[in-house]
């Protein structure tokens, strides 16, 4: 297990993440909090402010003492605790094992990213759990904020063997049903499946009150299609085959992938989901940094 931790969090990576930490702190106050400084208001011990009641507010939040004094309805607002439960949902279908000429497959890239996020959450005392799925959810770790949680998460991920088909939608529905508290769900997948059910599942997850970050991880070859000449492609999950003239098909393919990503981006935007398109040629620490900064700016 220790080995697994070292594999994914070797000194260079940790150094990068530590640097990320320092840089994040420099950019916003408390980068570690920056991940989810958050929209959760309600049950908390720390008073935040009073606000005039507006139709739709929960009447139980009305501060009757203020009403007695002012004869006006005010809502009592509290600052939620910054601790939030995060779940790393990782797609381990066969397609995630693919890489053309990058050192990391999509799964490796996702695990590295997830490990970094896990490390961040645990270091700010946030509980972090793990959900591994392909056609269905087949492994999970409950969210904990202990330092040993990182090792446990990585231990599970290191044992993951990508195989079989993927059913992201079904898995997300399962996750939505499984998580009883509102959580931060970080999904790592290539989304290479029928998009409509996935969209529905994402909306359902969002509807249950979870904050969702969708890391759409594609291989560099899947984005740029660098093949030449006549190539016989085999789809690793369905084992379909297709012979194409790569040079002739490139333009069409790249446009299709861009439209596919744009479709997801638009859907996620409307649903309030953070959509992070990535490919395995991007340095994941830089990708993570950019995402976190942009997220912090939004809140």
């Amino acid at each position: 297990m220790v080995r697994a931790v070292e594999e994914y969090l070797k000194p260079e990576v940790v150094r990068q993440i530590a640097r990320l930490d320092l840089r994040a702190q420099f950019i916003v106050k408390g980068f570690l909090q920056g991940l989810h400084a958050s929209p959760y208001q309600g049950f908390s011990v720390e008073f935040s402010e009073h606000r005039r009641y507006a139709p739709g507010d929960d009447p139980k939040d009305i501060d009757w003492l203020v009403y007695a004094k002012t004869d006006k309805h005010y809502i009592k607002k509290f600052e939620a605790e910054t601790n939030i439960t995060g779940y790393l949902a990782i797609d381990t279908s066969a397609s995630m094992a693919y890489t053309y000429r990058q050192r990391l497959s999509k799964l490796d890239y996702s695990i590295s990213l997830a490990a970094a996020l896990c490390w961040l959450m645990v270091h700010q005392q946030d509980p972090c759990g793990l959900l591994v799925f392909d056609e269905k959810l087949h492994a999970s770790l409950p969210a904990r904020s202990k330092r040993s949680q990182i090792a446990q998460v990585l231990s599970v991920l290191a044992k993951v063997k990508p195989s079989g088909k993927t059913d992201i939608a079904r898995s997300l529905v399962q996750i939505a049903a499984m998580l009883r508290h509102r959580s931060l769900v970080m999904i790592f997948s290539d989304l290479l499946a029928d998009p409509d059910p996935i969209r529905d599942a994402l909306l359902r997850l969002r509807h249950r009150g979870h904050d969702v970050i969708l890391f759409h991880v594609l291989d560099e070859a899947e984005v740029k299609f660098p093949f030449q000449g006549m190539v016989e492609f085999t789809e690793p999950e369905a084992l379909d085959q297709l012979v194409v003239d790569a040079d002739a098909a490139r333009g069409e393919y790249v446009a299709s992938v861009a439209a596919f990503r744009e479709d997801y981006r638009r859907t996620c935007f409307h649903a309030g989901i953070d959509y992070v398109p990535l490919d395995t040629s991007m340095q994941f620490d830089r990708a993570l940094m950019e995402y976190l900064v942009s997220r912090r700016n939004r809140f």
Partner: protein
Amino acid sequence: MGLSFLTPMLLAGAALVAVPVVLHLLMKRRPVKLDFPALRFLRHKAAANRRQLRLSHLLLLLLRMAALALLALALARPTLRGAGWLADGEGPVAAVLVVDTAPRMLLVEANETRLENAAALAKMLLAKLPPTSQVAVVDTTGGIATFSPTVAAAATRIDRLAGATPSLTLAAAMAAGYKLLATVPDRHREMYVFTDCSHGAWDGQAPQELSAAHPDISLVYIDVGARNPQNFAIDSVDVTGDLLAAGTPLALTAATSRAGPDANRDIAVEMLGDDGRYTRRAIKRCSWKSGAVGQVAFEISGLEPGVRQGRVILEGSDALEADNVRYFTVEVGSPARVLVAAPAPAQATGRCVMQAIAPASLRKAGKARFEATLQDVAQLEAVPWDGYEGMVLVDPPPLPVRTWDLLWQWVAGGKGLVVWLGPQAADAGRFNSDAAQKVLGGKIVRVWRSPDDANFLAPASLDHPVLAAFRRVGDAVPWQDFPVHRHWEFQPNEAAPGAAGEAVAAIPVAAYRNGLPAILEHRVGQGTVITITTPVSQSAGDPAAWNTLATGFEPWPFVMLANETLLHSIDTADDRNVLAGTPAVMHLERRDIASAFVRTPAGDDFPVAVDQRRGTITVTATQMPGNYVLRSGGAVGGITKGFSANLVSAATDTLRLSEPALAATFGEGRKLAATEAELVRDVKLERVGTELSGWIILLAAAAMAGDWIVANRFYAPRDDAQPPTATTAGFSPAAVVPPSPRTPPPLPGTPPPLPTMEEVGA
């Protein structure tokens, strides 16, 4: 121009185009196999992509077939040549060597004549001919064109070629060569034309028409012309009047030209003496301008009566000897006896003519051309005509038929008659008797009147011998100062050949400004009748004078005209100056001479026959330029005549044709070899053709390159360039080893390698 193959058997190799078809079908290379999860994005374009692939396959197949076919074609060594399909590069040929042997080919440059240069190249060419070839050597001397028995005999014939007076043009010699080659249709036929590419050789010729008419015969021109000739040339000598009266000076004009830098060089006139030696009579220093023509005039006086021959010669030597000398012959005679018949009063009416042809001053000095006797025309028959060589009828009235008949007989015997028509003719109906028309060659019709001074003699050209004397003055003759107010309209007889083949119609020699004939010539037997349609019988003060020809201010044109017409009419018209190679005809006054001898310029004597019926001697062997002497009857009581033969100016015109003129003469695409190497090249080109293998191999290489590009575009290398496929489980150990040279370099921004991880199950 045709396509042939040196190794046609190898064309069978073209059948190998079937190989790529079979290979294409049997061993179609498989595409590179790769895993790719995002296949969904390719599916909807799969059909179009498949069609494109099929087209690409077809293109690849065609390229490979083309490459093989082109290689087979290249190995068959296709050649392009004018020889047709049957030619065999090593087989015997039928060749005609046409060599220009005109004297200009003796031009020396680089210590050899053009002819020697041609002979050397010709012998080199013969040495390269296949041994059993048929070879003919055709030159421009006009010999019979025939194949030599052997190639060696042809070489001997080449050795014997010498510059000679041409009797054929080079184009005519080519035509003879083509005719000869037509007798051997089964062989590969070649013609080689050795030429100096000069104006003299090709002016007015159209050899490209000949070659175009024989496309199956290979033709190569060999240029042996001089590039920088150094030559002084006397192109011609103009003798103004080769029949001179005793005491009359001989006027000579030599036309010159120069090739090379400006220089000064003397020209001399030498007369041939009775001892057969030339004596110098005049010499002039001439300035020769480069590329320019010039004229040098001489006047030789004191010539004794008789046939006098001479030459105009260049002092010193130059590159071409043949044009350094020109020959001439004149006949100096004692004054010819002529009868001038004029109407009464003859002294008045015949005075102008008498003064013109035999001025009293010259008569007294014994230098007059003519010994003239004035006679009343009414008494014409009263005097015997036998002693006279010519007669002038001044303004004759209608004469009796008998008189005209006598005149006809007299003129036909070789005498001369000049008739100045005038007012005495009066009634055209009476004047135009058949006998008169027979003598004059036509009839008078009416009198034309031009009251103002608008009409005068206006000869269109000065070509006729009657007018030759005016050439020295040219357009400066003031004919307009001597208006002609009246003249007879003379209508020549119908121009039908007579029974004896002689012309019965007079021929206009010169006309008035109004276009009507002024001077007419009519040949009658061996004699000549000259008719002038306006008179010179009237005095200056006569208000009814028909003209002022003889009465105007300084009437020298009339004096010349009177002399020249009379001279021409009594001239025996011997050919005293002929072109070398053309026959010279000499007339004999005596019919008792049966044979004569001709002495050639080389000093040889040979007999010639006399045409007793015509009283002429025709000398045909005049190829050698020089002075020829004809003798008969011994030194006493015999006759002596002579003539000169000169080369035609084209035979010595060495001026080189310009490149455009050469192209126009030989036609586009001609083969013109100037050196041995070029000749070998052109011969090879004609006999073997231009090999196209190089070009075809280039095309084959292009097809192969196209194949390579297309193949590489569609098929990745089979074994070694397989990109790393996706790992199926986490990290593979290979992922962390240093990249091999075949592995594509990491993309920029690739994260650093992570530590190796064991298999999950391990």
